[in-house]
């Protein structure tokens, strides 16, 4: 379903993704784990047509994201790591707009929006503008929106960031159900090892833009002689904290805050 060969992405001189190759089978749940700045989000942006690769080939359901971008987009759903809601619309309007952009028929769109809003505990507050939501509620809405149309491949970039345990549980249960009942392929990233352990079939560990290990959770543990996935992860990527130059998106967000006088 996803086929990546020798993918490299540079930002100027800096190599964010360094010659990675992997495949994800139809119906698989695949996790991408790695320290901050490892290149997870960059890879997802390339797979989801938002960023062209510097070199290497990518196939999504046999299609090239750079050339057949609209066809690729029709097959995928994504929950971004960064916020991407329209804060001046209500939750309901955000979902409705999304459904329209993804050509979900109006009636179906309403039904699904209601189911998802109820599932993530937002139904009562659907008419409120998103800017009045708490951080966790926004996150839940982002997730609900990503699940509104039924994609063949679902990308989840740190979906549980800032979520309470209840919502996390709800999310993973739902994702597993989608995977089992509707055969949705899932590509996820997370910093919570227990989540990856619980849902992912195979796991790739990425560090400094390179895949350092790939296999099932059990395989990663055995190969590193660790008892838990967390230990295996630390054994593979070291214990040092990654220094990160602030990405341009962060800088812009900071500038925006200064601009609005906060």
């Amino acid at each position, binding site marked *: 379903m996803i086929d990546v060969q020798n993918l490299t992405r540079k930002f100027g001189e800096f190599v964010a993704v360094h010659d990675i190759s992997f495949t994800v089978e139809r119906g698989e749940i695949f996790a991408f784990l790695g320290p901050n700045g490892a290149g997870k989000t960059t890879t997802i942006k390339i797979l989801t047509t938002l960023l062209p690769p510097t070199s290497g080939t990518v196939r999504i359901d046999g299609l090239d994201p750079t050339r057949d971008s609209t066809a690729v*987009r029709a097959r995928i759903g*994504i929950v971004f790591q960064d916020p991407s809601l329209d804060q001046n619309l209500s939750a309901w309007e955000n979902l409705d707009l999304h459904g329209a952009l993804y050509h979900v028929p109006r009636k179906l769109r309403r039904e699904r929006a209601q189911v998802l809003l109820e599932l993530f505990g937002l139904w009562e507050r659907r008419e409120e*503008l998103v800017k009045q939501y708490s951080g966790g509620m926004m996150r839940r809405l982002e997730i609900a929106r990503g699940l509104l149309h039924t994609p063949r491949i679902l990308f989840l970039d740190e979906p549980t960031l800032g979520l309470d345990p209840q919502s996390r549980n709800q999310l993973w249960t739902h994702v597993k159900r989608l995977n089992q009942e509707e055969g949705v392929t899932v590509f996820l990233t997370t910093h919570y090892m227990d989540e990856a352990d619980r849902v992912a079939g195979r796991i790739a560990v990425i560090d400094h833009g390179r895949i350092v290990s790939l296999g099932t959770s059990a395989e990663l543990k055995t190969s590193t002689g660790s008892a838990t996935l967390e230990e295996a992860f630390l054994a593979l990527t070291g214990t040092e904290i990654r220094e990160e130059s602030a990405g341009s998106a962060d800088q*812009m967000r900071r500038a925006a805050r200064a601009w609005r006088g906060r």
Partner: protein
Amino acid sequence: MGAIYVLWLRELKRYVRSRAQIVASLGQPLLYLLALGYGLSPVFRRSGEGNYLEFIAPGVIAMTVLFSSLFSGIQLIWDRQFGFLKETLVAPVPRLHIMIGRTCGAATTAMIQGLLVALVAVLAGFRPASYGGVPLAFGFLALIAVVFTALGTTVGSTLRDMQGFQMVMNFLVLPIFFLSGALYPLAHLPIALTVLTRVDPLTYGVDGLRGALIARGHFSALIDLVVMALLAVALTAVGAWRFARIEI
């Protein structure tokens, strides 16, 4: 097609919800209209040019549409910052449709702003020379809105931050306004100003509007119309090209 409509609708909803901003952005045009309109009227009349309020009203209406449409176009930067742009860019919709939807929405709201100012002008005593010219005036209003929304989109797709935004304000918006003949007649200008006014796109929009509303156009309506229509097509094409190149 559906995507164009929903993105148009989104711009409208956001516009209607920003009531405080609507009122605030009407302040400046009203000052121009009322303070300059009444203040310079005696001098203008003495020099044999007629009623200044009548002369400046089309210019101020055009100014409102200019500011409003350029800013809506540049609003792209905000959508990029707050992330919503990503959401539209991964949708299975050609980028051209997204750009057109946004442009139509922004142009519509800019026209509404222009009409609000026109309403105030009427309350202040402005009357079109003949009501037959009103539909043509609408056409020019729409052309001004499209031209500058597309220009805003071009700038917004190219810029990445707020510093750039200030530059645009000082080196693009204000010159376009002051060199457009919105505030003064185009005849008998010093040579430098004559040249500058002729290369300013807004000149033709203001002139067309003035011709349609008070029958005092400097160029013929046909010239104004052709220039503005060509600019609308060209700038929309450039805007679409820049928009297609946005990387998140």
